[in-house]
């Protein structure tokens, strides 16, 4: 290499036939191997922290594996069969899907409206845009603790507010399905609406102004512009947020756990126990590791189904109808 450089620096001397072999190997390495080398950290980390746990979980799920010093005997698909007829597991599935629907649908709609509003010419626009991101910065545990206090049965602010409004209803937010789901959904929404709004906003800003100008000249109203220009143009982004919130919603864990006072059973009758909580309860409270691993794999399948379903639904958004 250094020889070559020196020859080049030597000036306008007629080009000699260069010694090709070493340069070729280098450039071949450069082109063929270097990209792999550069992306390898991700895949190495993924292999250690992603692939290995995945395969290990599968291995564990086929066994009667007792945590804390228990035995691990091969039982085949027994865990899966037991899970599919386990009413508590299905209860957790219903809760998870229910809370997901209750949280995500209003969240994304709200985020869309919020983004549309922020996309207008407002005074202090930057401040407002940053403002919607603030909830995201707070720790999820802090959010859950504060909201759990707000929804307290005896001294919670929500009940106090209802009282002030003349609705003399002493709601035990944790005891019923609808109330506990609502409480958890508001925690999720409070934290993630701003995040989705900012993503929508970024997508909205890539839409050419001329489209709106042309539409305005044609006499299209603001609402019409939103449905016929904005929404179709940001459809890929909507799909992205739908994916992310599906995955987040189906693996919901921290908020309901904190709401249950650090327990995994999600209320006295499991009224807000999510699948992730059920997995931890089985694996680390009842020490039935194999069963928990099987539940984790079923959750994985459920997420794939959920994402697929939402993809087909969300694809229609703003489509030519």
């Amino acid at each position, binding site marked *: *290499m*250094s020889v070559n450089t020196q020859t080049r620096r030597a000036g306008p001397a007629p080009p000699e036939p260069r010694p090709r072999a070493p340069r070729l190997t280098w450039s071949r390495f450069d082109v063929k191997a270097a990209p792999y080398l550069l992306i390898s950290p991700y895949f190495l980390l993924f292999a250690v922290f992603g692939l290995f746990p995945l395969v290990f979980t599968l291995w564990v799920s086929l066994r009667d594996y007792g*945590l*804390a*010093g228990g035995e691990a005997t091969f039982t085949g698909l027994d865990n899966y069969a037991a899970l599919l007829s386990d009413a*508590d597991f299905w209860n957790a599935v219903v809760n998870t899907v229910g809370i997901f629907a209750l949280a995500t649908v209003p969240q994304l709609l709200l985020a869309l409206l919020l983004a549309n509003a922020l996309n207008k010419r407002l005074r202090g626009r930057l401040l407002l845009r940053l403002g919607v991101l603030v909830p995201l910065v707070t720790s999820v545990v802090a959010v859950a603790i504060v909201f759990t206090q707000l929804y*307290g*049965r*005896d*001294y919670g602010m929500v009940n106090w507010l209802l009282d002030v409004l003349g609705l003399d209803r002493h709601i*035990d937010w944790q*005891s*019923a399905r609808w109330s506990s789901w609502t409480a958890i959904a508001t925690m999720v929404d409070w934290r993630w609406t701003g995040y989705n709004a900012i993503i929508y906003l970024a997508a909205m800003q890539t839409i050419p102004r001329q489209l709106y100008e042309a539409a305005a000249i044609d006499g299209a109203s603001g609402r019409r512009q939103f449905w016929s220009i904005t929404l179709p143009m940001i459809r890929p982004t909507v799909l992205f947020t739908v994916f992310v919130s599906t995955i987040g919603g189906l693996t919901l864990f921290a908020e309901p756990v904190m709401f249950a*006072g*650090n*327990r*995994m*059973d999600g*209320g*006295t*009758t499991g*009224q807000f126990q999510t699948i992730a909580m059920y997995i931890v309860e089985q694996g*680390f*409270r*009842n*020490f*039935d590791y194999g069963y928990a691993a099987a539940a984790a794999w079923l959750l994985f399948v459920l997420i794939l189904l959920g994402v697929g379903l939402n993809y087909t639904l969300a694809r229609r958004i703003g489509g030519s109808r």
Partner: protein
Amino acid sequence: MNHKARRGGKLAAAMTMAAALGVTAACSSGGTAAEGTSSAAPAEKITLTLQTFGGGTNFGYKAAVEKWNAEHPGVQVKYTNLTDSFENVYWPQMLQWLQSGTGAGDVVGIDEGGMGLAKARPQFFTDLGQYGLDSRKADFPAWKWENGLTADGRLFALGTDVGGMSICYRTDLFEKAGLPTGRDEVSKLWSGGWDAFIKAGQDFQAKVKDTKFVDSVNTIYNVVLSQEAAKNGNVTYFDRDQKLIAGTNPAVKTAFDLTQKISQAGLTAKLQNFTDPWNTGFVKSQFATLGCPGWMLGVVSGTAGDEFKGKWDVATVPGGGGNWGGSWLAVPKQSKHPKEAAELASYLTGPEAQLMAFKEGGNLPSTLAAQDDPALQSATNPYFNDAPLGKIFGPSIKSLQPTFLGERHAQVKREVEQVITGMDQGSVPYAEAWDKFVAAGEKAAR
């Protein structure tokens, strides 16, 4: 040329670095050697971690640990109380630490509910016999000693406290309800048994609306369960062959029925013990009584705080003696200083430290010497209106019987108590509660 020079530079740099490292290494090793020769004291200061659980003053080890630290400059104890809740947080976490081989302290507390599982996992715990602690056998009642032995008969845990029973009550609230306030009269009020207790509760509730008579169903349930266990062969959820008997043991059913009766009579504040709302309930005066095993006194004084000092008092429990709770100290295998840790465990379970813990939190000592100590027999507690705790607990603690707890006791306890709480709070209908209770126990025991 250029190339060679650069490589030379790198080499030189590497050599300089190596040399520097060598020098540092030389320095440090020289340093230790010098220290080692200059003083005869052990070169290294050891820090032992002591991990416990429980609300309020929990194990009551503050004074005992301070004394140890003052007397052992070379072996300092770091005392952490990890959480209020044994079944839900502490024990699962501890088992994960034991399983993964790191995280557990040098000395750890284990509640009676976890002992069945711990006994069956001797691979996690240091054999304390190898440090000569077998010699302490005569210090303890036989049952307390034997429960600290693994399945193959090796000593792995030493007993801390035992759970004699009482009822803690608020004198000011009793006065408000027109009930007697002196502890002898209060004890007499329900000397007829639990039905008399319910009657007193109804009288209380007739006069006072914003405060409930008892805190929760769990507390009373556990008091009654341990009383009933003593009448039914000293077993609760499991028989001695580790078979689940939660649905057939009359002790469980009796405790359940009484709990349901109290809940249906509207006497509970519908809280769940060892939760934040329960802790708040103390400060907001949401309830007037609760079932108090010895160690609960520290939970009450620690949680309610100085504001309520002197307003609490202690009366005898309706329905006779029982043994709820009591803990053990063990040394996990993963401890780096098992010898010192074993010494610490032995010290903390010795009569002297047990009496300090009794003074601090009301935890009743498990050693015979401490139980016989005049200091215990004549003890009073200023927080509880100078209640003569020695007189209240003293006569019963020596006759306490061991309750056998199965390997999966903690899991079953957690699940069935959740059903009781649900019944009290309204999410489980009274008519379905017993079936749900049995089903929850069966699932958790599987």
